[in-house]
């Protein structure tokens, strides 16, 4: 079993063949880590596979644009589609309302498979479900193919998530507005994460935590910066020892500079979103595809667990576009004079530059 698998790097876990087919939604990563999808296919590719289980992902919001909500929505929808329990905290009074804005998976394969399920008789359906649990190797070819493709879905932002994904799933919502201190949120996170503690060697189910706008001004202790920092530190520790990923967004302009830096250092993976000005002729001349862009995404840090090598990306700034006004795509920035054609997605291009300073490890 283990001998047949190629060795990647000096340290690799001897994973036996039977558990190499993980539940859909999880993927093996380098150095013994496991990935779950972020919900945005391009982002998964940029980050090298997805979000590592046990990492804390932080997104710096731009006060002038709601792009962090796009990332949040895709993250949450992906978790629901993969049957991963979700804990969602938001500063509004009714967090459940946000669930109504989650997008549904846009690829047609999903629609076909769900239709097939409902058409089958009940007896056959039960048998099929049992097969899935007890005998992973004997999965039908179709569902196997689906599960491989389904690691990351393309989410159609115009269609709301189907009811079947919302009913009966484990979704906890917390409103951070009325609570007097962070202890309540901390306890909810701890209770949620205790379900996914890392005892066994194989991962059966992964959890997702999504916290929106952690230091929003409505939040009662946006003044108590040290408390929030301790909460983050504790959350990071809890997440690291469990099979879960926490995604926290925060508007850094509302924090003092030093606090904002401390928060950024807390993150395992750090992204930031930025708004772009509308009808800016200079930007339109400078960048191709400006008409379709709605914002910019910067990748500041990528999580690397169980290794000392940092990830150095070719490009760190990507433009956020809505393809056909439905699907979120991230593209490398292309400057207009050199590349007259429209921008290419990350996997194919290497021509554009990120920052002009190269990492210190680049030779």
């Amino acid at each position, binding site marked *: 079993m283990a001998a047949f698998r190629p060795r990647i790097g000096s340290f690799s876990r001897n994973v036996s063949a039977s558990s190499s087919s993980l539940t859909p939604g999880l993927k093996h990563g380098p150095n013994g880590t496991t990935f779950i999808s972020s919900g945005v296919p391009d982002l998964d590719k940029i980050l090298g596979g997805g979000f590592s289980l046990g990492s804390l992902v932080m997104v710096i919001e731009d006060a002038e644009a709601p792009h962090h909500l796009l990332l949040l929505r895709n993250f949450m929808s992906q978790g629901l589609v993969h049957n991963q329990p979700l804990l969602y905290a938001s500063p509004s009074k009714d967090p459940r309302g946000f669930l109504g804005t989650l997008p549904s998976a846009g690829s047609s394969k999903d629609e076909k498979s769900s239709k097939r399920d409902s058409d089958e008789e009940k007896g056959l359906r039960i048998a099929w479900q049992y097969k899935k649990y007890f005998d992973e190797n004997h999965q039908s070819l179709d569902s196997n193919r689906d599960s491989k493709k389904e690691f990351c879905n393309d989410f159609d932002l115009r269609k709301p998530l189907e009811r079947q994904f919302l009913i009966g799933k484990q979704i906890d919502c917390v409103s951070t*507005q009325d609570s007097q201190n962070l202890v309540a949120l901390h306890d909810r996170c701890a209770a949620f994460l205790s379900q996914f503690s890392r005892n066994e060697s194989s991962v059966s189910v992964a959890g997702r935590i999504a916290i929106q706008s952690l230091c929003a001004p*409505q939040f009662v202790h946006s*003044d108590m910066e040290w408390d929030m920092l301790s909460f983050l530190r504790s959350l990071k520790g809890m997440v690291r020892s469990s099979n879960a990923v926490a995604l926290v967004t925060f508007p850094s*302009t509302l924090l003092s500079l030093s606090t904002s830096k401390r928060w950024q250092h807390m993150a395992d993976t750090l992204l930031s979103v930025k708004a772009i*000005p509308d009808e800016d002729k200079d930007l339109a001349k400078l960048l191709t595809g400006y008409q379709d862009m*709605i914002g910019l995404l910067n990748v500041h840090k990528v999580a690397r667990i169980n290794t000392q090598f940092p990830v150095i990306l070719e490009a760190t700034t990507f433009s956020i576009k809505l393809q056909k006004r439905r699907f979120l795509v991230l593209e490398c920035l292309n400057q207009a004079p050199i590349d007259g054609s429209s921008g290419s997605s990350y996997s194919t291009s290497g021509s554009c530059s990120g920052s*002009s300073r190269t990492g210190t490890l680049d030779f």
Partner: protein
Amino acid sequence: MADSICRALRDGALEGEHAPALTIKDNIASPFGFDVFSHVLSQLSSNILAGKSQSRGLVLVAFRRSPSFYVDFLKRKGVDISSSHKWIQILDCYSDPLGWKDGFSLETSNVASSCKNVKDVHKLLSTIIELGQGLVGQGKVRFSAAIDSVSEMVRHASVSSVSGLLSNLRSHDQVSSIFWLLHSDLHEDRVTAAFEYLSTMVASVEPLNQFGNGQRSNMNTFPLLEQSFAKGKFHVRFKRRNGRVRVACEEVRVEQSDVNFTSVSSDNGMINEGLIPKVQFNLQLSEKERIDRANVVLPFEHQGQMLAKLWTD
């Protein structure tokens, strides 16, 4: 673009969306914020009366001026106030905000109700909503809200509770639009940033001549000060639904409590350099880089001179 602001407030919120919110901010060098606020107020009032706006009523929370001032102001602007109690309610937080004047009967009219305790932000929120629902009923009809000065509110209550009030108002089903005034000099940058975070449009009034990096004109420029007293720059940043930011600039002139907006011919020649990384190849050296280049001692260039120095020292 004051017209676009007024139009945005008039059109109000779409179904399922939070209400548009406008922050008007000014500073000591260009203290025309209240004039802009009252201009927006009169525009919205005439739109409500004419039935052109989504909202059917207006709740004004007055901290800085008395309700009678507003009634007179609207009368002067030609807004019909004879039926005013049907479409406007003024919450009087000016006469007795902290309830000090016990037993002193305040004048009440059918448009004004007084608030005796501005520190209780929850009560304030429910009073605003009650007044609004009193104007438009409890159904689907919406009302607008205006707050005379959020800077005043923050004197009495914490920033987080005031932010909570504003965001709850925005997310309330029956609120069509809200706008408030803020004096940015009175607060730390973070407080101003917090209120800008909550709003969808930020209109700032700035002085015409700003020296260096936003320093206020000093005493030596007295003549300039007098000349530009009644004029200022009006910057607006719209957060559009597609996630982009629209920036617009106009000139504002205040004459005898009349406010005029004229478009500015200057171009926005600046590229937002902070946004994009060095995408463009820059073959020119900056001044500092030129000096540094001149200072570099190349390894084999001065060999002869170094040896010569050794002999002579």
